[in-house]
């Protein structure tokens, strides 16, 4: 079975590389989700703040990065970032093109996009906290930071889990676009394998399956996290 050997782990098989590539895809997505969480909470905070300027800035961020094609952002970060680095290099006396590391550029680009979606998730989660619970926290004498740590943070986290699960799925798929920078992720590796073996159909099917495995495993992870976090919800919601 020649086909079977091609995707196997033998000396002529692509199995090992595909596995590595899946890991790479997971890593890019995870780092992107983290960057997105930081950007997203800042943007959500800006959108909820009393300042008009901050609200406008936050609104602009979510509009722009949800409205522009992901690929364009990746090009912008990778080539834009690289020319900035090259310019700095030239100024410091180095001749020639300096590339941004494709992992960093990819994770940053996907993170920026994911941040726009996460901002909406966090904002919705904050607004889902019953106002009375925040008043009770004030009334018992909690200062601002204590309220954030003890009441707001944990509840935002709880309400945000399903939404963050969705963003993770989106980012996982967006991360395939990072292959344009040459990063050896699952997409890129499937492409290379398909090209060099001329078995296009086989490798794109295998690549697709690996993506499905990644998404269904993460789906399970987020569902169980959601269940855990919803222990405190009324049974009708909690066990759903």
């Amino acid at each position, binding site marked *: 079975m020649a086909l079977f050997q091609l995707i196997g782990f033998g000396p002529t098989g692509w199995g090992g590389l595909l596995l590595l590539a899946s890991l790479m895809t997971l890593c890019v997505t995870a780092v992107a989700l983290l960057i997105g969480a930081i950007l997203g909470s800042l943007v959500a905070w800006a959108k909820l703040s009393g300042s008009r300027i901050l609200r406008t800035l936050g609104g602009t961020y979510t509009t722009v990065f949800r409205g522009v094609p992901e690929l364009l952002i990746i090009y912008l970060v990778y080539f834009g970032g690289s020319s900035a680095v090259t310019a700095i290099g030239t100024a410091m006396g180095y001749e020639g093109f300096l590339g941004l590391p494709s992992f960093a550029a990819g994770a940053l680009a996907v993170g920026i996009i994911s941040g726009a979606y996460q901002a909406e998730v966090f904002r919705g989660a904050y607004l889902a906290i019953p106002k*009375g*619970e925040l*008043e009770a926290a004030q009334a*018992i004498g909690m*200062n601002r930071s*204590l309220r954030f740590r*003890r009441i707001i943070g*944990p509840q935002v986290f709880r309400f945000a889990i399903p939404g963050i699960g969705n963003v993770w799925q989106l980012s996982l798929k967006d991360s395939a676009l990072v292959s344009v920078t040459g990063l050896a992720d699952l997409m890129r590796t499937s492409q290379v394998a398909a090209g060099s073996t001329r078995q296009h159909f086989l490798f794109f099917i295998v690549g697709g399956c690996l993506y499905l495995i990644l998404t269904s495993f993460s789906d399970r992870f987020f569902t169980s996290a959601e269940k855990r976090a919803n222990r*405190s*919800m009324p049974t009708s919601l909690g066990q759903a």
Partner: protein
Amino acid sequence: MTPTTLNQTGTTMAGTTRLSVRNIRKSFGTHEVLRGISLDARDGDVISLLGASGSGKSTFLRCINLLEIADHGEISVDGELIQMEQRGGKNVPANRRQVDRIRSELGMVFQSFNLWSHMTILENVIEGPVHVLKRPRAECIAEAEVLLEKVGIAEKRNAYPAHLSGGQQQRAAIARSLAMKPKVMLFDEPTSALDPELVGEVLRVMRSLAEEGMTMLVVTHEMSFARNVSNRVIFMKSGEIDSDGAPDQLFGSGGSPSFRQFIGNFGG
């Protein structure tokens, strides 16, 4: 209309003044909701605040612990004046830390319970003592268990609020306030959100608090509580105190015509 003010001789014990409110005014936009309200609560006083919907009872209670900031007036808790200052033409607290501390000395019980839904009942009760008062956790748990026993929900200690009945939630909320060892307890219609058959269990807890000498300010529509448990009744009308006196006197013959009309609506 002349306010029916009765002096407090005989109605209160000769205790210290726990809460003193001087000439509170509060407007929302152009609507003046509180038009100069003063009140002194002495140790062990149980004061029922009555009044029609919109008369400003909740706003008054919320001004006392600064959930709303009064435009004018002074508030002292246990002799300590809450410092205010003028900023941008508005009356604001001068010292946030003082506000937080004063709040921790005032228990507040809300109509809608407002337990923290992500914490168990026990966690709700120890939250304040452990994180606001920074007391040792083990000690707080021991005290919380006694309190939960007292309000009759010890067996629910590890349940989440959403899994309790309204009456149980409100009793848990009372325990949460008591855990702070408050100097004064403020209740804003604590039984109004409850099914009729659950009102009694909450009133019983409040009654036993009153009997133990807790200083309480209770906004309520429960006339039996006002009559039989409180030692003073204040009737508010359009942001002012209309009648103020011992329940026997007000419910007897001392109340103003508006007060008579008000209690008439309750079939009293």
